[in-house]
């Protein structure tokens, strides 16, 4: 659809198709015939049939929509900007973060704080790194600016915590060294979810 068509808001000149819903009844007799027609046509029973079918499907084919939330979770989109994760280099297991400080600078709510120092090889490394998730607005700037793909957004969206201290140390966000093989790259903000194909549905217009 071109932009011109999209911007045209004059209803009636586009190629919309209107549904034929008939005219509402006016006189008492018309109303009565409508009621009789609808009663005899059995539309009410179609409704009953639909819910019965749903129930049988739910019972025997296990076609439920319920997600037992704390026990089960829906997959979330890779674009989702949840609690940050600090990644490691896959080869050596070292931190990816080079302590450049860009994320600290760009953070618009000023919630990243870090200290750096030179290690024994005269390379910079972070000694302290915290994100105050009580203030973070999950804008994603830190992940976008990071030159090393070190800080990314993860999938943990349950941000409630009993104490502010839980918000949040470098070690909490860092990939544990024994789970390095499970570390997942952040697909980025434009990525589609892995099950995107399954989510495409035909719009149900045909009642």
């Amino acid at each position, binding site marked *: 659809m071109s932009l011109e068509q999209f911007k045209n808001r004059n209803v009636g000149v586009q190629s919309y198709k209107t549904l034929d819903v008939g005219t509402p009844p006016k006189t008492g007799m018309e109303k009565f015939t409508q*009621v009789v027609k609808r009663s005899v046509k059995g539309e009410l029973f179609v*409704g*009953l049939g639909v819910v019965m079918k749903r129930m049988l*499907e739910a019972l025997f084919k296990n076609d439920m929509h319920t997600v037992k939330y704390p026990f089960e979770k829906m997959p979330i989109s890779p674009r989702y900007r949840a609690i940050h994760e600090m990644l490691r280099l896959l080869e050596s297991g070292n931190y990816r973060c080079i302590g450049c400080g860009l994320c600290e600078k760009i953070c618009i709510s000023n919630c990243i704080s870090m200290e750096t120092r030179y290690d024994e090889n005269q390379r910079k490394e972070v000694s302290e790194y915290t994100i105050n998730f009580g203030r973070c607005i999950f804008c994603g700037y830190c992940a976008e600016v990071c030159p090393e793909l070190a800080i990314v957004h993860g999938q943990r969206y349950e941000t409630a915590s009993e104490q502010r201290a839980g918000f949040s140390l470098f070690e909490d966000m860092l990939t544990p060294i024994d789970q390095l093989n499970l570390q997942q790259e952040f697909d980025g903000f434009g990525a589609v979810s892995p099950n995107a194909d399954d989510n495409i549905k035909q719009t149900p217009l045909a009642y």
Partner: protein
Amino acid sequence: METTLIENLPEVGAVGVIIKAVLILAVISAIAGFGTFIERKVLAFMQRRLGPMHVGPYGLLQIAADGIKLFTKEDIIPQNANKFIFMVAPVITAATAFIALSSVPVFPDFTIPSWIPLLGDTFVPSIASDLNIGILFVLGMMAAGLYGPLLAGMSQANKWGIIGAARTAVQFLSYEVVTGLSILAPIMLVGSLSFVEFNNYQAGGISNWLIWQQPLAFVLFLIAGFAETNRTPFDLLEHEAEVVSGYATEYSGMRWGMFFIGEYANMITVSVIASVVFLGGYDVVGVYGWLFIIAKIAFFFFLMLWVRAAWPHVRPDQLMWLCWKVLMPLAVVNVLITAIVMMV
């Protein structure tokens, strides 16, 4: 077989009736509680949900949890309410619902075995009081039950309550007419108001059921029954989306629970009447008759839940229009035709 059984009834003593009354109270209250569980489950499945799942296996103990909650809640009486009427209204609903149940046949009759001390050999009838005007009494009691919502709504000094009470008057009063007229035609055919007579009249197989002779009356009675039990297409009295909770807005805890139990008991009563009057009661031979009538009652109960899942509810003006301009004329015509056919 059933006929002879009913004619040879042993003497019904006062003790038997009392036992029966206690039985009805206990079992119907329990069924009403269980009914809420079934309702939630059925509705959930029809909407592809799971329903209550966490208390007990498949959420079965949810009833107990709800019961504890209802019993232990604070009993709040609003400041400007008319205290006495406010307190007595739920009792009216629950009491009339159970009184109505006293003269419909629920559960088989049995004799307490003689080895049990004190109560041995007591005969417990299937109907607590087998009135010869059973149907009239039940309908009258259900009609008296409308005082519950009516007084509750008027007494609580709440505008939603007032609207609920007004709707009560409008809905129950008009549908009372349809119930009476629709059941009049079967009464004319049978020539009695006793449930036992109805049962005997339809004895001898499915082809003798009154539903085949009076299909229109059956449909009318069902519609009116839905309206009288305040079930979904006609649940105007307490429709949350419109009037918060109607007549029950200010009620909480056990007082609200009594309305609730009353409503479920009424559902059971209507199911029983429909099964006995139109679907042949407990006619199928011997022992299985009682199973069969329970299946019928369960079906009507399920139908109410089913309809609730499927259909939207109507506006008050549509309700009135349907009652006075469609159902009542149909009922009158039905009575007329029945009368003419009987005379010819």
